[in-house]
């Protein structure tokens, strides 16, 4: 029973496909890839509610409801990992967020182009170096016998410290490394925002006799404030995203107490200890909260950018 309008719709669709089939041929591999490698694992997330056995597979394993989640929320190690994730993110935000802004403002005040270009080239570089190498450098530099940090401390008569086995040192080292590695690169976004500030603003300020310091505070910073706020919202939305690869490379059992984050916990419980269903439950919890935060951040930043940028 097809009404004339649906059949003409179908006809139009058929006509469209005859003409444009090539587009769908181009799209198909991408869509198949997304389903096989990203959407199929989402279907596999159901093992968070199952007693997963390798032999029965994802669909065949029996349901157990919220059993894994109940275990999760009474598990001290998981709660500790959750707390560590938030604490590490929070301190990274507090200490790491202002740095690229300051750098961009400073780069903007450099008049010598050669100097500016050279130092930019250097400070962007660590972003492109792998975490294994960065961790290797950190491990070497902070080593108790040979490391430069303990050598320098020795000059001042301080006792050597085996930093990477000390829980109280993990966070400063981890967060400091992150700031060292990423600040330069993150300054690019702010430099682009600064480049968009209208030159006439500066011209009239110069006529009024403003100093460069005053122009920075009265013109540059207010002009890039929308960008700063959007970046801040995005950062807060990603608060559960701690680069756990770096955590895994730098932590050891002695520092789990301050270092273990949700994803490194999932990695140990799931992949190393083989508790797939339990670890998947932790992952699902993490992903749902992260998704909600990112969505909230997107909505807020969209609303904010609509009202204040245009």
């Amino acid at each position, binding site marked *: 029973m097809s009404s004339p309008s649906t059949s003409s719709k179908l006809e139009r669709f058929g006509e469209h496909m005859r003409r444009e089939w090539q587009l769908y041929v181009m799209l198909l591999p991408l869509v198949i890839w*997304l389903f096989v*490698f990203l959407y199929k*694992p989402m279907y596999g997330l159901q093992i968070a509610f199952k007693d997963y056995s390798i032999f029965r597979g994802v669909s065949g394993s029996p349901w157990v409801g919220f059993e894994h989640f109940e275990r999760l929320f009474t598990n001290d190690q998981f709660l500790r990992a959750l707390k560590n994730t938030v604490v590490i993110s929070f301190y990274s935000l507090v200490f790491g967020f202002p740095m690229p802004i300051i750098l961009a403002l400073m780069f903007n005040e450099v008049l010598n182009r050669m100097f500016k270009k050279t130092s930019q080239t250097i400070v962007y570089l660590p972003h492109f170096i*792998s975490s294994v*190498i960065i961790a290797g450098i950190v491990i070497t530099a902070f080593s108790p016998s040979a490391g430069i940090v*303990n050598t320098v401390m020795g000059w001042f008569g301080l006792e050597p410290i085996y930093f990477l086995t000390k829980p109280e040192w993990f966070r400063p080292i981890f967060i400091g490394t992150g700031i060292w590695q990423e600040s330069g690169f993150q300054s690019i976004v702010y430099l682009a925002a600064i480049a968009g500030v209208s030159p006439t603003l500066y011209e009239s300020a110069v006529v009024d006799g403003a100093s460069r310091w005053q122009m920075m505070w009265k013109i540059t910073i207010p002009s890039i404030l929308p960008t700063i706020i959007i970046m801040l919202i995005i950062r807060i939305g990603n608060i559960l995203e701690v680069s756990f690869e770096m955590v895994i490379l730098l932590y050891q059992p002695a520092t789990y107490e301050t270092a273990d984050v949700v994803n490194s916990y999932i990695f140990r419980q799931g992949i190393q200890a083989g508790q797939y269903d339990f670890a998947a439950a932790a*992952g699902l919890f993490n992903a749902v909260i992260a998704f909600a935060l990112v969505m909230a951040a997107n909505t807020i930043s969209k609303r904010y950018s609509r009202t204040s940028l245009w």
Partner: protein
Amino acid sequence: MTNMNLYSRGDKLFVIINMVLIGLFTISTLYPFIYITSLAFSTGFEARAGNVVLTPVGFTIEAFKYVLADPQFWVSYKNTFIYTIGGTLMSLAFIIPGAYALSRPQLYGRRFWNLLVAFTMWFNAGLIPFFLNMRDLGLLDSYFGIIIGFAVSGFNVILLRNFFESVPQSFEEAARMDGANEFQVLWKVYMPLSKPAIATVALFCIVSRWNGFFWAMILLQDEDKIPLQVFLRHTISTLSDDQEFGNSLLDASYSFETVSAAIIVCSIIPVLIIYPFIQKYFEKGILLGGVKE
């Protein structure tokens, strides 16, 4: 800004202090690399005693000799090249046609297809389901698994789609008049016009492949297939457990520290070689990708 030649004494002081601070920041970025390089060229004895600060002490290339004599180093170097080149080509093969199709206004369900890509940037199933899926697909311990399993990133698709969308329609009209089909329009009109954007995506792929570590560590057990980053990690963690490592403790020409440093130097060099190309494109790339949806 031509007005900048008009500045007062206060401004001059400000500019100078600013330059000094930037100089310090730049040096502190560079220093760890200098330190590691000097360590690699120092004797094991001096390195172990903590005497290397800025330049090599007791200059020697013994650590490099040790590293380069290890067949596993060359195997993993070769593997990294395979993953980087194969993976990047695979990524482009999926991303370029896909992004082109997504950029066409006449595509049916365009919003839906775009959402399908964007959603993967906001939500992912996480480590365990991804790992189990790779295992179920029989892609553990496989070159192909590493190459195809990480081919697409939603960010790169959207970056390229945004670029294709910004190409004015008028460019393709002549080709359409000549009866070109979609493949020909993509190949002859869009690809040449989008060289900078494609180069950006390719460089992002190259860098992430070269640096890829975690999944290679998880998915590859076979030592013949591991990439350089995994080899480096193995070396650092096994040698650091072996406190006695070195050719002789009293007069060691190499030690754990200098050997680790030498591998680090060897694996940074290719990144430094392509870095000028990266730099040419990535600034534009980030800003293009930043304008999502």
